[in-house]
């Protein structure tokens, strides 16, 4: 009896027509960029007027005449002209002091925490974006809720419990070889579902093929990934969540223990120019208002240099959010350099905003996906969006 009922329920669910796709032209999209290695927040958004900063950075110090000033005694690293422009246009916000109390300073453990949104993450197999994909996906429609755009193995952030999340390097990966629409199939509901998903696959592949754009991106790896993301947004096939990355696999390209100055400038130039090109492309196509971009890195770095012209693993750092609907300007206050986490050479900026508040904002306020089930508990809004 019971089994029969369940079977009937299954059949009726499977036999539903393809859900009329909510006009995806209205759908909002979240793009997250992972920065591996622990980005030095203090030399990214530089408190150039702060004497404590000046004393801590004996050789790496950036001065008033180096930085790109953005107010409040702060300036972007000189390689970040693209960010300065986005910031001045109001399309980029700097969120100060993001992290969590007593931050992990080990690359793997620290990254797992940001990826899983769980500060006790050892046993967690899934990431916060993966769980968002699980919430968003409608099994019977064949829609792909989330995509990783990059060339490394999928970061944990976007690994789901149930949903298959594709890794897409270039738009050319999304092709469907030589098949016209298959003939409609017969009674078996599972076969009907497979048929419907095949048709969706054909339609989506055709949209991808038609979505190539000539917009000019720099040759950086992150820029190429974001080009793929932009083209997939243009293709309008219903993807809600994207992950891209810079810095590669652990320990990651932002990990500058020695001779930081040159490497860091190269990394920040790639970051700023890639995101600058991406936002320019979206704005040109009238899509910037539908997109929220957010960065994260596993930790910031120590206030003090280490004697090898580099910095050690630190704690809180700024997060960047960009898009047509961000408030712009600064969110929160720059961390005080006289009240640090850790002591001596290990002292580093303290978190003033829990990273999961930003995640909650992105999930719930932006995507409309309930955040508490994904993050384990409710977090207050970080208030980065225009109301």
């Amino acid at each position, binding site marked *: *009896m*019971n*089994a*029969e009922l*369940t*079977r009937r329920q*299954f059949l009726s669910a*499977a036999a539903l027509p393809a859900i009329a796709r909510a006009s995806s032209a209205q759908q909002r999209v979240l793009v997250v960029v992972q920065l591996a290695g622990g980005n030095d927040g203090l030399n990214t958004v530089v408190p150039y007027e702060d004497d404590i900063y000046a004393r801590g950075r004996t050789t790496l110090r950036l001065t008033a005449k180096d930085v790109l000033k953005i107010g409040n005694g702060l300036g972007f690293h000189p390689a970040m002209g693209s960010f300065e422009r986005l910031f001045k246009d109001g399309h980029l916000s700097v969120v100060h002091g993001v992290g969590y109390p007593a931050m992990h300073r080990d690359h793997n453990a620290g990254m797992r925490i940001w990826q899983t949104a769980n500060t006790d993450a*050892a*046993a967690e*197999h*899934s990431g916060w974006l993966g769980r968002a994909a699980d919430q968003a*996906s409608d*099994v*019977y429609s*064949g*829609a*792909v809720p989330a*995509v990783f755009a990059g060339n490394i193995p999928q970061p944990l952030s976007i*690994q*789901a*419990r*149930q*949903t*298959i999340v*594709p*890794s*897409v390097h270039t738009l050319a990966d*999304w*092709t*469907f*070889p*030589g*098949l016209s629409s*298959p003939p409609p*199939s017969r009674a*078996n*509901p*599972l*076969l009907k*579902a*497979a*048929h419907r*998903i*095949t048709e*969706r*696959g*054909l*339609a*989506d*592949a055709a949209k991808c093929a038609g979505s190539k754009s000539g917009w000019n991106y720099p040759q950086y790896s992150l820029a190429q990934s974001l080009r793929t993301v932009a083209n997939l947004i243009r293709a309008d*096939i219903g993807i809600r969540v994207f992950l891209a990355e810079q810095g590669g696999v652990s320990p990651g390209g932002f990990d500058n223990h020695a001779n930081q100055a040159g490497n860091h400038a190269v990394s920040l130039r790639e970051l700023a120019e890639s995101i600058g090109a991406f936002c320019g492309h979206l704005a040109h196509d009238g899509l910037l208002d539908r997109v929220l971009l957010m960065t994260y890195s596993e930790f910031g770095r120590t206030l003090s240099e280490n004697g090898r012209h580099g910095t050690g693993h630190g704690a809180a750092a700024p997060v960047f959010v960009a898009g047509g609907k961000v408030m712009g300007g600064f969110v929160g206050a720059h961390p005080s350099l006289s009240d640090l986490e850790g002591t001596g050479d290990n002292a580093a900026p303290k978190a003033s905003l829990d990273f999961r508040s930003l995640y909650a904002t992105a999930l719930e306020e932006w995507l409309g996906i309930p955040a508490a089930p994904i993050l384990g508990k409710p977090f207050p809004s970080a208030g980065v969006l225009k109301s």
Partner: protein
Amino acid sequence: MNAWTPYDRPLDLPLAAHLYRRAGFAATQDQLRQAMKDGPQATLNRILQPPPALEAFERRMAGLSGSAMVSESAASTESAELWIHRMQHTPYPLLEKMTLFWHDYFAIAGAQVGRSLLMERHIQLLRKHALGRFDALLRDLVRDPATLIALNSRVNHKSKPSHELATALLRYTSQQGDPTLIARAFTGYAVLRDEFQFRDYEHDSGAKQSADDTLQQLLQNPATARNVVRRMYRWLVSETAPPGDELLEPLAASFARDFDIAKLAASILRSNHFFSEQAYQQRVKSPVEFAIGLVTANDRPVAAAKLHQQMSAIGQRLLEPPAGTGWAGGLRWLNSFTIAGRANLAASILPAGSPELANAISPEFQLS
């Protein structure tokens, strides 16, 4: 007509193919012709028995799995590729299909173990018992280094018993119980230099039960046999309609008496129910079933590394199940990207414009 009595009508082509898909990955044309001639029960006698060629095959595989490449790596890639090689060439596909079943059941992920050698031994353990006895499998599993490491029990301290191991055992046996009590029973379990070790001084002498008694009690609860039978039904029969308890009861009662996995699988595969429309095309092929099926049916073996990469791209990275409950399966396998990815995988193996390729791309071929 009783659901579980043996099916005794002749096999037509679709049912012969159905049997080979479920009891392995796919049939060759010769196997299909032979099955239609022999009928279901004689064909099953052949499928269920280890073939004479198995011994020589296992010797060849043992040579490969001892290589430094497999044993020294942290990532599970090499072990996964070795398994994919094995699946493509084995003379005993049922054994690999059931090993895959237990991999999905226990869902130990290589990323959490961080040592290819231990994943290789873990899969060997699953294979050793895949058609053996479930009680013996479970007893070996709790002393398996990969399992212990993945379940946060590299050292199961008296002061901090592993909750993960206890909750996993409750999940494997589908029971509600107090994980803290179970966790205390397994204190002292540890892994040292890739081997299981029992540390007397880390064992909680105040634990109410020994580890052996705890396992015995979990096994004796009828929920355990029912859970294995339910999972195997989903694996061999249908993912669409959850079966009622009354349908499974005869299988569960028998399995609870002897935990004989081969007998359970045989009862299912030989049955009227298995050859009915309740089972036919009621599963979605996993990427492994899709790819290995494609390769074996067309007799076009592919380099394991390439196939591993292709199967991962469409959602199944062998040795890396995404959750403690295994792969979600069913229609979760199919979406707009993976269906295109399956077509691309098929197109990389089969000639362009061939009827085989057209078949592999069809919605029917995505089902088992």
